[in-house]
């Protein structure tokens, strides 16, 4: 969460709700190191990343849900499964992403 703190603070000061998604675990090849975060604001602004762009859109919709419910969630992404149209990581890695509202 370190690298996104200035933006999170600025958005909060501007009166927006903010949700942060953080890579908390990786297995095998993963695009971003553990601790990397993506911040999403109530108005839809995004800053940072949790992958090379492979799962951001799914994380974004989960972030918007957490924005509403206030209930944190742990998401898991694995290898892309073309048959199931799942969101995944083509690089063959797996990541766990924790999504939470910022107080």
């Amino acid at each position, binding site marked *: 969460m370190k690298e996104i703190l200035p933006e999170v*603070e600025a958005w909060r000061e501007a009166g927006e709700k903010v949700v942060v998604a953080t890579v908390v675990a990786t297995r095998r090849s993963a695009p971003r190191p*553990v*601790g990397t975060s993506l911040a999403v604001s109530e108005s839809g602004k995004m800053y940072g990343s949790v992958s090379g762009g492979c799962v951001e859109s799914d994380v974004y919709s989960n972030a918007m849900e957490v924005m509403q419910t206030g209930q944190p969630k742990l998401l898991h992404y694995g290898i892309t499964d073309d048959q199931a149209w799942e969101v995944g990581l083509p690089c063959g890695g797996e990541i766990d992403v924790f999504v939470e509202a910022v107080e």
Partner: protein
Amino acid sequence: MTLVARLRELLESGDRAVLFTVVEGEGLGSKVLVIEGGDTVGEGVPAAALEQFDELVRRGRNGIVQADGAKVFAEWYGPPPRLLVYGAVDTAEALAQAAKLLGWTAIVADARATFLTPERIPSADQLIAKWPEDAIVEVAPDHQTAIVVLTHDDKFDEPALIAALDTEAFYIGALGSRRNQERRRERLLEAGVTEEQLARISGPCGLDIGADTQAETALSILGEILAVRAQRPGGPLREAKQRIHAEVA
């Protein structure tokens, strides 16, 4: 004060801390911030996780801690690695610039105050106009500090290297031609430095990437520093057998 504001303060102060967050199990979403030698803020994180604070701070790495059936994410806060360059030559500015790009703290020292000016070395966070021994004592290099010595002058380079060897610095590099390295080696041995200590010195420092300009040389040296830090050989990834992304302490 909000937690975010508090974390921002930590980034500025460089104080060591760990932010614990329960990401699975009882107390989901609970957070506790533990600051080294200071406050503990928040509640709801199992004590078994918090007890690992010392080890987490020492390792300086983010990760999951298992505690009482809960999964707790530990995010580490602490000062960035430091690069100390002894010798206010052109390459020092290029090295300081490259280190700043990595988010590191760049310190440049030289006894010759006329060379050591903010105009010549604008990218350094700190300039120290002292003799090698005193400059290194002031910086107090730890296991998160890299030292590069590049005055090209034995009367500075040798004491700087001897003082550097007396620290926990994870990298010690020296510029200079192969012939100069050999001569320096003899002189350091005469000065009482052991073969084992000499093995810690990367000289000539840098990776073999055909660096020519100051910026290229800086990149070559920083490349070697990163490789040493991650305990990687520094060659092409297509020839590497390990996983691509390193876990650096």
